[in-house]
């Protein structure tokens, strides 16, 4: 558990999203003016329910919007203070941002090593080979199973391959989308450790999670999104104490405080309007 306060933000953050608006198929407005920053050397958590727009935000950053017929209609994404224009996904990878998509999305018919090699596709042969060795050092388990078909690995191992594959481009910022989704509580703990490890190796992380307890336990700073807007942000210690966040995301999951049993639910808890 890191109780670190966020490090003092440098003048130009690694990633800044400014007032971003995204529309799918020219009709469905998903992001309605989202702003957030990821300072260099930090872990930032992004919380929110299904459909809040978290994945869309990640797509906007990593250049995957066009294939979903999505479009930025307002605002911008800045990397090192420099606005991204029409960069394609490969170009963004070269700028040092790598993404682990929701559901891991391994190339299931390919071996572990082949998966990792795809992660290093944008790089020349020599640095890619070095990166591969580094990943194997970081995840010795993957070195053991390098020839295994990735689809047959366990959930935890697959998450390792997915993160390792993203790290092959030696990114400065890793976008992690729901790494704990569908994993057993024990494996979730392992994933948290991996995130910490990645950070310790010098890569910043933007962690998108529904498992707020897990995310807030590792991040320095957090944002909460609802309906395409950021409705709360703050250092993680503050967010953990915030009553609204507790009500909607934490329940009694984080130690202390009485948790209402699911058996006791008798009426709807009507959705609270966030005071944004």
């Amino acid at each position, binding site marked *: 558990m890191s109780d670190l306060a966020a490090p003092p933000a440098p003048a130009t953050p690694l990633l800044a999203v400014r007032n971003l608006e995204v529309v799918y198929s020219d009709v469905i407005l998903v992001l309605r003016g989202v702003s957030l920053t990821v300072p260099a050397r930090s872990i930032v958590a992004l919380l929110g*329910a*299904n*459909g809040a727009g978290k994945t869309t935000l990640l797509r906007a950053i990593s250049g995957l919007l066009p294939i979903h017929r999505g479009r930025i209609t307002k605002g911008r994404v800045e990397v090192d203070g420099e606005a991204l224009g029409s960069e394609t996904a490969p170009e963004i990878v070269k700028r040092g941002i790598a993404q682990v998509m929701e559901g891991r999305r391994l190339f299931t018919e390919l071996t572990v090593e082949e998966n990792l090699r795809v992660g290093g596709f944008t790089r020349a042969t020599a640095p890619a080979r070095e990166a591969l060795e580094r990943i194997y050092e970081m995840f010795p388990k993957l070195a053991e199973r390098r020839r295994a078909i990735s689809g047959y690995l*366990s*959930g935890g191992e697959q998450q390792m391959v997915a993160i390792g594959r993203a790290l092959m481009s030696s990114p400065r910022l890793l976008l992690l989308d729901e790494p704990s*989704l*569908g*994993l*057993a*509580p*024990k*494996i979730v*703990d392992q994933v948290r450790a991996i995130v910490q490890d990645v950070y310790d190796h010098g890569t910043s992380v933007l962690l998108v999670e*529904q498992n707020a307890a897990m995310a807030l336990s590792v991040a320095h700073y957090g944002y909460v999104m609802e309906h395409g807007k950021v409705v709360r942000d703050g250092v993680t210690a503050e967010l953990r104490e915030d009553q609204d966040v507790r*009500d*909607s*995301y*934490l*329940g*009694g*999951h984080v130690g202390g405080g009485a*948790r209402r*049993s*699911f*058996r006791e*639910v*008798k009426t*709807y*808890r009507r*959705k609270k309007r966030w005071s944004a």
Partner: protein
Amino acid sequence: MNESRLLRVHDLTLRFGGVTALSEVSFDVNEGELFAIIGPNGAGKTSIFNCLNGIYRPQVGRIMLGDQELTGRSPVAIAKLGVARTFQNLGLFSNLTVLENILLGRHHLMRTSLLTGALWWGPARREELAQRRSCEDIIELLELEPYRFLPVAMLPYGVRKRVEVARALAMQPRLLLLDEPAAGMNLEETEDMARYIREINEELGVAMLLVEHDMHFVMDLAHRIMAVDFGRVLAIGTPDVVRADASVIDAYLGVAS
């Protein structure tokens, strides 16, 4: 409780090629019971569901629903015997409306064939009207009124999960299999789902088999829990018993919670 056994699963073993997905799994579910299965990914939870459904054919073992043998029957036959199910990643017909999805749940209770359907005026129309009425009851129970005529694809995730439960309920099941009903939902939606599950279980008296990762959800709601890992049963018992079981903590829960 032994006198009211609804489902008896005995010695279930399932292999794919050389991989053993389930080995000697045995458990019972009583009438009106809410029975949960927990375990890590790939432990065989969904495989158990698929065997119950008839999607997979286990190599060894028997499954009895009341005094009916389920093993070896087709999914369609099993559905007609009263086993309904929801899917982990949603099994809805996304281009159809909510009402049509729920009406499909009543498919095996309806008679209209291609021929009478083509003629429409007469039995087909009468049946449509009659079934529409029963579907409206379910729509009311699960509070889906505003969405009736909307294609499922346009609905938020949480509502879709509810529609799937509604469709399963429309089948008038004796046993309802719920595969991760709370996955991907926020706290509020999870609480709603808990309430629906309790209503269905307590007021309609439908027995349920539940697979879920949210431990609080499971521990709070289930009457009994079975923990599985690598296709084997680790423990069966009340929530308190399972929670304290050393092998369960070791394989799944990590820290005792």
